[in-house]
């Protein structure tokens, strides 16, 4: 991957949350929500970040968007490290990074009209006003499959799928380069999910957007992503081109995730190979974070942390056994 084409490059990013105890609120340890992750996203691509709840995927995304302070690491956006920027400098970058949130019911202010929700970023950045503003909102609404006549309605008048379209219109208002989609379809009905996924793909083509797409649903991620990274307890355990990862998963955790998805093929499943339960990020052992649930881990794994290594061209995984 050549550097000129890279829009976002994350290097050794860490976000740790202190655990405070006692009367003096002394820090007794850290939750390593994001622990030393690195990846890069070429412009115009979709980077899928998958993992179970608590794996740190949302924290990673919010750290990249500078909504949570990073503990260490560098985030290069368009070649510039944005972590040390001051708020005033950050404002310019904020225009280029936007977020689509998971829950379309809580991410839209119920007391604002659709028009003013979408107008807000345009006003804050002093991009448009007056009739030009109205015109832009109308265009945005039509781009996401709604109608310009919806402009004076309130969020409660819309269904879940339509609200998510409004959220997408708001995210696109500033013509961003990078859109962080944090579980954009997991709160939606099955028949609506596919509509939104198609819309995201169409918009990407039209505006040459780059997506950082977070989801726990592996089949959704496969559909939309070019590159996929699997996170487990704050670390990336496997990263590869989507087609490669799904055809030839290397890490035992990726295999476990893929096998756990109920496939829509009618056959009564036998009580499956028992899947060990997850542990929390606060109580990891000294070795491989996946050791406690790994079917092939041995003594060596319990004492040493496997590095993320390239096992085939463009296919990295963090496992001693591969």
């Amino acid at each position, binding site marked *: 991957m050549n550097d000129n084409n890279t829009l976002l490059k994350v290097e050794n990013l860490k976000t740790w949350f202190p655990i405070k105890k006692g009367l003096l609120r002394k820090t007794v340890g850290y939750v390593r929500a994001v622990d030393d992750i690195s990846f890069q996203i070429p412009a115009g691509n979709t980077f899928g970040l998958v993992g179970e709840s608590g794996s740190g995927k949302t924290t990673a995304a919010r750290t990249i968007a500078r909504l949570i302070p990073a503990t260490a690491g560098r985030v290069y956006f368009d070649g510039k490290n944005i972590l040390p920027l001051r708020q005033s400098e950050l404002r310019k970058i904020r225009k280029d990074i936007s977020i689509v949130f998971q829950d379309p019911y809580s991410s839209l202010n119920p007391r604002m009209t659709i028009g003013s929700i979408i107008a807000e970023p345009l006003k804050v950045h002093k991009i448009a006003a007056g009739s030009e503003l109205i015109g832009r909102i109308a265009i945005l609404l039509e781009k996401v499959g709604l109608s310009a006549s919806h402009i004076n309605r309130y969020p409660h008048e819309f269904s879940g799928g339509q609200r998510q379209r409004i959220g997408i219109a708001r995210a696109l208002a500033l013509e961003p380069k990078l859109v962080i989609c944090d579980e954009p379809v997991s709160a939606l009905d099955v*028949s609506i999910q*596919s509509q939104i996924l198609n819309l995201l793909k169409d918009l990407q083509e039209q505006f040459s957007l780059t997506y950082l797409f977070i989801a726990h649903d592996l089949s959704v991620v496969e*559909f939309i992503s070019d590159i996929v990274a699997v996170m487990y307890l704050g670390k990336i355990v496997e990263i590869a081109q989507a087609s490669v990862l799904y055809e030839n998963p290397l890490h035992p955790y990726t295999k476990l995730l893929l096998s756990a998805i109920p496939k829509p093929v009618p056959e009564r499943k036998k009580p499956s190979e028992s899947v060990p339960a997850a542990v929390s990020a606060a109580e990891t052992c000294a070795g491989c974070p996946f050791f406690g649930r790994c079917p092939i881990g041995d003594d060596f794994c319990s004492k040493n942390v496997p590095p993320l290594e390239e096992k085939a061209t463009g296919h990295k995984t963090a496992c001693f056994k591969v």
Partner: protein
Amino acid sequence: MAENNTLLSVRNLSTFFDTEQGPAKAVQDVSFDIKPAETFALVGESGCGKSVTALSIMQLIPHPQGRIVSGKILFRNHNILELTERQMRVIRGNKIAMIFQEPMTSLNPVFTIGFQIAEAIGLHQRKNSAQAWPMAEEMLEKVHIPDPERRLYEYPHQLSGGMRQRVMIAMAISCKPSLLIADEPTTALDVTIQAQILDLLDELQQSEKMSILLITHDLGVVAQRADNVAVMYASKIVEQCSCGELFNNPLHPYTQGLLNSRPQLGVKQKRLNTIAGNVPEPLNFPSGCKFHTRCPIGCNDKRCQTAEPQLREVSPNHFAACWYAEGYDKLL
């Protein structure tokens, strides 16, 4: 269809909710049978009436705004809708138990796990707490919670989501119900935990010989766990058959649309098939077939727009509510 070996038979159930804009018809004319020890799945999207059906069976519909307007619910050939609240209490939780989607909100945060399970046992089986606590421990062991003796004294917030759902299941099966209603039991859980919980339900079904009414929106879960399925759309059952039949030979365009619109694992797709439009709201259902506004044939068909098709047996034991259930392909 009412045979002797049916455990639960729901006949023409309709449940409405009164609102300021008139009655919201949440469930209309729903009928199905559950045989002993089978898993019957009720599939549909949000607002289609699947949870209201379950709550109607449990008679937990909020009063007075919600009411069961017509129908019968025969449990072992007795219509439980005719029971008094006092009599219903003997059945609810005891013969028919229910687990909910959110294990976090269905447990009481201020009592220990042991107290809550023992309370259910004490209430339904007339045991004092000295007798109930050892039984609670036994139940925790049955749902594979490690170190049950210690867990009894823990509070819900000390357990993970999967563990909480196990506690809910322990509580539900503590009175050996013959029917367990599982309302989206794994929707709030991660995939790996989901597999564990579904395995547990399977195992308990085998050992306790209970029937399960599984309510879900996930067709993958249905495919792997159900014996028979009913697909609900906008308050009605639109297709009903055995699980294998549903996936191999779906007859209703809605079922076909649902099956086609999921991204498939291991298949590279350029675009996903979609079902156009939105799920209709109970207060303004479209005329005629409720699916016609989103249906590839119904949207242009006069009959679909004006007359509502009834659920009928299209092939043996395969019911569908569509005018074109037989000749759908030829007409396209």
